[in-house]
C-alpha cells in the first residue's frame, strides 16, 4: 500500500477513534479502533525512516495507539523495534510511553494465575 493510501486510512481511523471516545462508545469499541490506528501507524513507520519527522510521528503513533488500546505487550515490542534507529529525542518519547504502559499495567491487565485441579479416578 502506498504512503498516500496509508495516510488516508490512518486519518479516517484516528477520526473514528476520537469520535467513538468523545461519544462515549464502549471501551471495547474504542480499544479496537485504537488498535487499528496502531497497525496503520506501524505500516507507515515501515515506509519512513525514524529521522523523517513523519516517520517519527508514525512511530510515536503506533506506540501511543497501542497504549491507548491497552495492549501493553505490543507497546514494549514496538518500542524495542524502534529504539535502534531512534535519535535521543524520539527514544526518550518512546521510553516515556513504555513507562506509562508499565504504570498502567497493574490496573488494567488481566492476571492469569495458573492453577491445576486433580481428579482421582477409580481404577
Amino acid at each position, binding site marked *: 500500500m502506498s504512503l*498516500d493510501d496509508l*495516510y*488516508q*486510512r*490512518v*486519518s*479516517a481511523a*484516528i*477520526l473514528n477513534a*476520537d*469520535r467513538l471516545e*468523545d*461519544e462515549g462508545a464502549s471501551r471495547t469499541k474504542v480499544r479496537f479502533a485504537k488498535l487499528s*490506528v496502531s497497525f496503520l501507524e506501524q505500516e507507515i513507520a515501515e515506509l519512513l525512516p525514524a529521522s523523517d*519527522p*513523519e516517520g*517519527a*510521528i508514525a512511530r*510515536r*503513533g503506533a506506540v*501511543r*495507539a497501542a497504549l491507548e488500546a491497552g495492549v501493553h505487550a505490543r507497546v514494549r515490542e514496538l518500542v524495542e523495534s524502534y529504539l535502534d534507529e531512534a535519535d535521543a*529525542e524520539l527514544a526518550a518519547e518512546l521510553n516515556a510511553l513504555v513507562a506509562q504502559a508499565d504504570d498502567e499495567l497493574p490496573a488494567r491487565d488481566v492476571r492469569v494465575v495458573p492453577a491445576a485441579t486433580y481428579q482421582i479416578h477409580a481404577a
Partner: protein
Amino acid sequence: MRRLELERLREIHPQLPETTAAELVFRAALALQRRHLAGVNMGIRLVTMGLHTSLDWTFRAPAGDAMLDRHRVTEDGAEVLALLLVNVAFGWVARRRLQRGECADWLLRDADDRRIALEISGTDNSDVEVRLREKVAQVSKSKAAGTGGTKAACVVRFEEPLALLATA
C-alpha cells in the same frame, strides 16, 4: 477573500478520505444551519490581518441530528472551515490526521513542501480569543512539523461566524 465552498473540501484536500470528508462537511453544515443560511459572512483574522468571506454549502436535512454529539459536530464543523481557510489563504494542503498526543490535529504541507502542524478548535459562542491563546500554547509543544516547520492554531466560532488563526 473569495468565498469558502464547503462542498469542495475533498477536492482541495485530496488526502482526506472521501467518506471522512463527506461526514465532516455534513457536520459542518449542521453546525452552521443552527443559525445560518448559505451565503452567510464569516469574519477572519489571519495573524494580524482582518478579512471577510462568505460560506457556501448545500443545505442538509438535519435528520438524525439529535443523535449526534453537539460538541463533536461543532468541532468537526470547525475543522472543515479551518481546512478550507488555510488552503485559500496560504495554499496549505492536508497530509494526514494526527493523534491527540501530537498536540495538533492535522499535518499539512505548503506549496514548497514545508510542514505545518495545525490545531483546530470550534465553539458555538464561547470567547475565541481565550481559546486561541490556549490552542497556540498547545500547538507550540507539537513536534509533528519537525525542525523549521510551522505551528498554527485556528479557532472557529459559529454564532456569528468568525475564524481566528495565529502561529506559535
